[in-house]
Every structure is written in C-alpha cells, then in structure tokens.
C-alpha cells in the first residue's frame, strides 16, 4: 500500500464507520430467513425509510445494490446475464444489473445473500423505469406491491393539493400495505422519533456539503459526497447509526477545513485546487476511482453537484419535521432532484455556480438514464446564458463498463479545463 493511500485511509475514519454500517446491514439482511424480519424494497429517490423502519422492516434499495456491484466490477457480468435473459442493450443498466444479480443467485455486493421482499414499495418520483423495474421484480418474487404516486413538479412547485394527495395515499394505501406485509401496526410516535433523528443527520450533511464554499474546499462534493450521502440515501436515515456517522463526518470535515486541507482523492490527498466545478448527472460507477482521479490529477475539485440531491434536497432548507410526520414525507419526496423540472434544475445549477464561486460546470450524461439525460443540453445552454460560464459535456453510463471510454472522457475534461485556463488568461489580459 502506498504512503498516500495510507494517509487517505487514516484521514477518512468516517469511511471505516460507513463500511461497517453497510456490512452489518447486509449481514442482517442475510439472516432474515432465521430472524423473520420483514423486508421492504424501495428506491432511493422518495425512499420512506423512517416509515419502513417504524414498522420494524428492513429496507433494500436495488439501485444501491446495482451501483455497488458497478464499483466492485461485478456489473458487467450481471448485465450480460440479464441480456442473456432477453433484456436489450438499451434497457437501463441499473435494471439489468439488478436482474442479472438475482439470476446469478442474488448475492449482494458485499457477498451476502439478499432476502426476498415482503413488499415492493414504489415511491414514484419522476423515473418511469422504476415502475417497470418493480413490475419485473414482482414477476420474479410474486409479492405484493404498493404504489405511492408523487406528483412531478412540472410547474416548479408542489401545490397544497399535491401534498394532501400524497398524505392521503400514505394513509389509505402505503400504511395499510406496510401493516399487512409486516404484521405490525402503524406507530406514529416511533415514526416521529425516527424523523427527529433524520433531521439531525440532515443538519450535519448540509454542513458537510456546504463546507465546499471554503477555499480550498475540504471535500469533493461529487465524488467524495456520493460516499457522504450513502447512509442517508439508503437504509440509515432516521437511525441512531446514521446520526453518529454524520456527526463523525462533520467533525472530520470541519477539522480538514480548519486545517486548510483539500479533499482526499483515490490516490491520496489532492494537490492545489486549480478549478472549482459544479457537476450535473450521476457518476459512472464501473470506473469510479479512475473517473475521480482524472479530475483530481488536474486539480479540479467539485464544489457542488446535483446528483447528491437525488435522495433528498436539504441544502435549500428542507428538513424532516417530526411535528408533521406524513406531510413532511410528502414534502421530502416532492423535493427529490429527480422530481424537479428542467427550469428548477437549471436554477439549482446557477445557484451552485454562484454560491460556491465555481469556475465551471460539467454535465455527465449517462446513456442509461433518460430521466436524467433528456434536456441536459438545453440545461447546458441555459446555464451558460445565465452565468456567462461555459459548460462541458461528457458521456458515460451508470454501471455498464462498455460505455466508459477513459480516453474520450479525459480528452473532453482536459480540453474543458484548458479552455478555462485560456479564458482566465484572456480575461486577465
């Protein structure tokens, strides 16, 4: 192990905590056949973790399994397996990775077997493919499904009637389905308790993400932050473990900020912060470290990203509110990044470019995800127009290793950064 790697590992204690939390969760899932704990599958955007947990159920998030499989170099084989079962090359690769994993024995990314779901809880927040994905899983597992419809913010606002509509669904459909699947009754006090824990984690997460306003930024708010949002986007929102993790993470980041240190990239602490960038779109998972290192090698630090808002947007003030346990979950779901319309996404990017004093922005357009990619070029032009800052456009995929061309991405990124250099030299001349 290189010295720089050791430094990196030592400084990222929170990573150790997180790894343990995740491993324990998967172990607990593996023991389900003996413990008989109920299991609810749900997706990251609009996940109702506190509610699910309040019924004593364990959440499983298929996209997290898919992206973890991508990071652990297993997704290529899973996708090939799904394609052997007739899924075409153009189908979302998260879906194929998940289906392939199930067909290959349903061994999760950490090497433990995943339990069957007692309920598929589909919280619909803008991704049409999620519906089809759960239809496929329903075929696979022959289990009950409940559909929670979150109205899309087509006009950029969540109206009171949208909120009422969602709360009514929670009362009339989601809660009864959870009661039936778990055999437990709805316990609002417990839910409130969990929501309060969520709000504490959210405060700490926002402090961590906003630390990037400092120069140099102590964190990378895209590559680094996908680890930071991991617990809150998956099974740990509303848990004491989550609260502990975010407290530790915040202390760690604040210490880095106080010491004037930059982020730790895969090959070690990053050098001088030469470029501050905002990124739109999900990362590529199959070559995640290589992708990050391309930025780090150039001294490019990501100071804000939209992807880290797919499982909840907290940096504009929203917090889970225990005083309104169902209404707050409606607000949360409506505000997830996937549920925000194109003008809303543009506003967010413009806001980030200004608030984080960024030099530029990069759109990573992923082949798999039309929910993300459709309209991104229009967004690029509009953000350029409103800020006067040119953007870059790169293309890859979520978990299909065939769609990652290192040379092509490196070329575009380097060209873009050199373009920023030329622009700086030109502007100062």
């Amino acid at each position, binding site marked *: 192990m290189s010295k720089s790697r050791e430094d990196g590992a030592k400084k990222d204690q929170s990573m150790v905590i997180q790894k343990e939390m995740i491993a324990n969760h998967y172990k607990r899932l593996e023991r389900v056949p003996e413990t008989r704990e109920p299991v609810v599958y749900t997706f990251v955007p609009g996940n109702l973790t506190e509610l699910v947990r309040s019924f004593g159920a364990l959440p499983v998030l298929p996209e997290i399994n898919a992206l973890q499989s991508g990071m652990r170099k297993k997704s290529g084989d899973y996708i090939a397996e799904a394609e052997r079962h007739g899924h075409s090359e153009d189908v979302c690769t998260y879906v194929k990775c998940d289906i392939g994993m199930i067909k290959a024995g349903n061994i999760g990314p950490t090497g433990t077997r995943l339990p069957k779901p007692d309920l598929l809880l589909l919280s619909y927040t803008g991704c049409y493919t999620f519906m089809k994905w759960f239809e496929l899983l329903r075929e696979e597992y022959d289990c009950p499904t409940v559909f929670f419809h979150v109205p899309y913010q087509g006009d950029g606002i969540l109206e009171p009637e949208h909120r009422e509509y969602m709360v009514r669904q929670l009362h009339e459909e989601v809660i009864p389905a959870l009661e039936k699947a778990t055999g437990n009754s709805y316990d609002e006090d417990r839910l409130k308790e969990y929501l309060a824990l969520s709000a504490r984690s959210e405060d700490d997460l926002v402090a961590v993400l906003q630390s990037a306003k400092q120069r140099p930024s102590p964190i990378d708010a895209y590559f680094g932050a996908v680890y930071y949002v991991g617990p809150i986007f998956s099974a740990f929102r509303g848990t004491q473990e989550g609260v502990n993790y975010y407290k530790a993470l915040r202390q760690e980041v604040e210490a880095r900020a106080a010491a004037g240190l930059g982020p730790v990239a895969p090959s070690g602490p990053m050098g001088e912060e030469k470029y501050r960038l905002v990124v739109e779109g999900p990362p590529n998972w199959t070559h995640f470290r290589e992708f990050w290192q391309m930025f780090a090698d150039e001294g490019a630090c990501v100071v804000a990203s939209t992807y880290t808002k797919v499982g909840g947007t907290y940096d504009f003030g929203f917090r889970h509110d225990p005083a309104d346990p169902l209404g707050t979950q409606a607000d949360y779901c409506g505000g997830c990044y996937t549920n925000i319309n194109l003008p809303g996404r543009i506003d967010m990017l413009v806001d980030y470019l200004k608030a984080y004093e960024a030099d530029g922005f990069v759109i990573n357009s992923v082949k798999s995800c039309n929910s993300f990619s459709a309209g991104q*070029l229009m967004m690029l*032009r509009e953000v*350029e127009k409103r800020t006067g800052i*040119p953007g870059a*456009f790169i*293309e890859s995929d979520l978990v299909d290793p065939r*769609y*990652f*061309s290192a*040379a*092509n991405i*490196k*070329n*575009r990124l*380097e*060209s873009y950064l*050199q*373009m920023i250099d*030329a*622009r700086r030299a*030109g502007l100062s001349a």
Partner: protein
Amino acid sequence: MRSVIGIDLGSTTTKAVILDEAGEILGRGITNSRSDYDLAAAVARSEAHTNARFGLLAQAAEGRVKPSQIARLMRAFRLEQTLRQLVRLRELVEEEVEKSGFGGLKPAAASAVAEIFKRIEEEERAFFRNLDPPKRSDFFRDAAGSAYTRIAEELGDPQGVSFDMLLGLYDKCIIRVENEPLDLGFRDHILAALKRIGSPEGLRGAVSMAAETELEEVSTVGTGYGRARLPFPKEQIRSEILCHGLGAHRMFPGTRTVLDIGGQDTKAIQVDDRGLVTSFQMNDRCAAGCGRYLGYIADEMNIGLHELGPMAQKSKRCVKINSTCTVFAGAELRERLSLGEKREDILAGLHRAIILRAMSLLARSGGVFDEFTFTGGVANNHAAVSALEKLVHENYGEKTLNVSPDSIYTGALGAALFGHSLEN
C-alpha cells in the same frame, strides 16, 4: 534560426508544423501514425524540418532557377527517400525468406521477391521521370504496398509461391521498416537528389545554405489523440480541441465555428475573435462517421482513400444510408451493392451520412456561425465538403465555408502557436 514546433499525434496520421520566431510557418510534415507513436512524432518532425529547409532553399534560389526545378529537386528527394526504404524493406523480406519454412520453394520465393523489388524500383524511377504524375498517397507504406500487392498478384503461383505467401512477407516486414528510425532527413539525401537532377548551377548554393542552417527548437507543444504518449511536460501538451480552434483562427481569422473530422474523432468547436474555444462537442466513444469509417469503406472497395471523394462526386442519385457504424460499414456497402445500387451513389450516401452526424454535433455545440472552417483529414475530401456545404446552407443559411488545402495541419499549427505564445 530559433523555431517552435507543434506536433499533432492523430490516430491515423501524425503532423508537425514549425514556426519561426515571428510565428510564421516554416514547414509542415506528415506521416502515418504507426504502432510506435514516438517514432511517428520523430518522423513527422523530420519531415517538417525537410519541408522547412525546402522553403529556405526556395527563398535562397528565387530568381536563379525556375520554380519547376525546385519542384523537381523535391521529387528527386522523395525518390531517394523511397529507394532508401525499399532497400531496407527488401533486406527484411529476404531475411524472412531465408528464415521461413518455404522448404523447396525457397529459391522460387527469393526470385519472386527479387523480381517484385526490381519492378517497384523501376516504377518509382518512372514515377519520378513522369512530368505529370498521377495523384497518390505520400506514405511509403501505401505506395510500396499497392505496387507490391499488384506485382505479387501477377507473379503468385497457386501451385508454387502463392500470392498469399508473398503478401505475408510484406505484411510482416513493412511494420518493421516503419518502426525503425531510418536516415530519411534532408541532409541525408539532398545531395543525391541534387545530383540526380544534374546539379543545376543556381541550386547548389541554396542547397548548401538550406542544409547548413540550424533550426534550433526552443519549444515543442504536442496535441492530438496520442498526446499523452509524448515525452513533454504537462504545460507543453494541449488538447487538440484548443489547437484546432487556434489553428483554424490563424488560417482564417474570421472563423467562429470549426468542424474537425479526424481519424476517430469528430469535433464541433466554437471560438471567439481570438481563436479561444468557447464551447465544443465531440463524438462519444464510438468512432462512427469519422475518417476511419471512410478508410474501412476504401478497404472494402479495394480502392485508395483519396479515390473515394472523386467517385462519390460522380453520383447523380444519392442513396440514403442510415448507419455510419464503422463496424457495419462493410456490411452496409455489400448490402447496397447486392440491391443493385451504383458504387458512386452509395458513396455519395455514405459521405452525406458522415456529414449528417457532424451536423448533429454542430447543433449540440451551438450551431454554425460565420465564418465556418472545416479542418482535419476528411476536409481534403471534396465529396464531404460538398455535402457539408449543402447541409449547412439548408440548416443555417448562407455561410462562408473555409477549407484550407493544409487543413490536415490545423491541430499541429495550433499546437505550434501555443508553443510560440509560451515563448513570448
């Protein structure tokens, strides 16, 4: 004389441009990018030096000899270079015959090889004597390969030393010739070339001056697909996107939009009034519709790359082609031929398909603005230029379309300009 050099290490060809202290172009050089990128860069650099020295020579000899004499000297120089490479190729092929398991056929193989090289050499000498020679590729691999293949086909005997055996020898050895640093520079061959044209009085002094001038390289900047392979410090490596923008601006100062179609990249670039890039788009990892695609089509049709454009321009009825996938290029071509379509009509369709793909990138980068400059190897293809002119007119109205005969050097020129600005 102090100079700066820009090297564009492309996927198909490697180009070099030398600038003098004032930033004026002294010389250009090109070679095919072989498996050894370092050597490709060295050859392109040497060729650019040769071209620069011919430029100095022409200046010195101005008024003393006719321009046609300088052109003849240049062709004599090329002949000397070719003969040098032929000698090496022949040595290697003969070694192969000796080593190979031809058994009883060895004498026959040796005699076929001797005959092939004798004829190629004769053809090369005749090509030099021809006052109006046909257009052909400048690369030794192409010229020698096409002659070797043709003669081997005539001499090949299915019962004895077959065509395939002879071709196998060539394939094995040409790569080695290309990857050996041969003495092909100006100083190595200029005196022999001068002698070959009878050492005209007015040229001798100019030749000595050109050979003796020192071209001190004070800065080198690399760009292109293989730029990471160049042994230069980071600040001397520039993205080809920026280089194409700057190079196009130098060639045509009114340039606002640049389209570059290279071997495996297509780029749409917008530049400001100083040639600085403001926006760009390029193809994704798939090289569909790039120069390499035309290369495959030429191979499929068994014709030279430079013959594709003229053939497409004979078309009266452009066939609609849907796919520009390089992998399926051959299949698409054969399918169309089997449907009875004419070769020229299919080729016209293929050129249009390539340009349609480029139009999509142009739109993504922000559109086409006046003036519009087309660069890269494909800009040498008149059928591609015509298709582009037509589609730009249909989509964006009247625009000035600039195509330089030296468009293939745009990236190297931009790199040299960056080098020049580093020095100043």
